[in-house]
C-alpha cells in the first residue's frame, strides 16, 4: 500500500528532484558570482525606482538569475524579474 502511494507521488517530491533544482539555482549564482544577498539589494533598488511610476505588489516581486540559451547553443546569464503591478500612478504619464 505504501509503495502504491509512493508511485503516484514520485514525480515531484523525490529528494533527487529537490537536489537537482536546488543545485541548478545555486550554480547559476555561483557561475555569475552573484549572491542571493546581492540580488536582494538589486531588488530593493528596482522597487525604489519603479515605485515612482506604479504601485507594485512587493510580495509577488520575483527576481532571479537564470540561464538562457543563445543561438550558438551557448548559455548566458540573464536577470529575470517578474513584477506584478497593482496600479499605475499618474505621475509622469502626462508629462512632456
Amino acid at each position, binding site marked *: 500500500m505504501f509503495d502504491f502511494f509512493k508511485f503516484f507521488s514520485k514525480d515531484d517530491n523525490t529528494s*533527487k528532484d529537490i*537536489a537537482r533544482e536546488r543545485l541548478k539555482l545555486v*550554480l547559476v549564482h*555561483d557561475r555569475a558570482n552573484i549572491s542571493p544577498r546581492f540580488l536582494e539589494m538589486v531588488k530593493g533598488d528596482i522597487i525604489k525606482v519603479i515605485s515612482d511610476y506604479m504601485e507594485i505588489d512587493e510580495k509577488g516581486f520575483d527576481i532571479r538569475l537564470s540561464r538562457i540559451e543563445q543561438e550558438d547553443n551557448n548559455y548566458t546569464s540573464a536577470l529575470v524579474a517578474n513584477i506584478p503591478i497593482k496600479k499605475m500612478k499618474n505621475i509622469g504619464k502626462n508629462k512632456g
Partner: protein
Amino acid sequence: MGEVIVITSGKGGVGKTTTTANIGTALALEGKKVVLLDADIGLRNLDVVLGLENRIVYDMVDAIEGVCRLKQALIRDKRFEGLYLMPAAQTRDKNAVTPDQMQKLCEELKDQFDYVLIDCPAGIEQGFKNAIAGADRAVVVTVPEVSAVRDADRIIGLLSANDLHSPQLIINRLRADMVKRGDMMDINDTIDILGIDLLGVVPDDEKIIVSSNRGEPAVTESSSLAGKAYRNIAKRIMGEDVPLLSLNEENTLMDRLRRFFSGKSNSSSI
C-alpha cells in the same frame, strides 16, 4: 611522448586517490607505462592505497629540489609491470613547489611514460594550482550529492580558466537502488547540471574499502563491479569506445535469475 592527466574534484573525500590508483593500475594491466604522481603534499595517501608506503625513500619534492635524481623518487610497483609511483612529501606543505616546477617535472615524466596521472589535492588553493600546471587534460571526479556536484562545477570553471577545457567526468559511488527510488541524482541529472562529457560511472562498492585496507587496487578483482568500471574507464582513456555497462534490460537471463535469487536489484548503468 606521453599524456599528463590530472584527477581532481574540488571537494575532498569523493574518491580522487582511489580513482587515480585504480585507473593507473588498469592502464598498467593494459600494457601501458604509467606513473602516478601524488600532488597532495603534506597529506599523502596514494602510497597507502597502493600498498607501497614501506618502499618510500625519496619523494617528489626531493626530486624537484635536486636532493635525488628523478629516477630515485620513482617507486616501481613489483606486482604490476609498468606501474610507478612518485610519492608526495609528507612533512612539507603545498608551497614547497611552484606551478613552474610541477610543469617541468611533468615534461620530464612525459618523456618516459605513456601516462602521467596526477592525484590532485582537495581545494582550489596552491595545491590545486600546482597539480594542474603540467596537465594536458583533466578528469573531474564527483559523487551524486549536492555538495560534491557544486564543487565540481567550480572546479570545471577554474580548469577552463587555466586552459584545461572540456574535462571529463567520473561519477563515483553511484547507488542504483537509491537512484531507482528517486533518492539519488542519476547519471543524466549530473551530466545535465555540469555540462561536461562523461568518462565513466563507478558504482558504490564495499570492495573498494576492502581493497584499500589491503593496499591492493580493486581493478585486480574480477568480481568487483567498481573494479570493472575502472577497467572500462582506463580503456576509454586509451581511446577505446567502451559502452556503459547496462544493468537493466540488456542483461542475460542468467544474470537476471542470479539477481532475482540474491535479492538485489539494479536499475542503472555503469
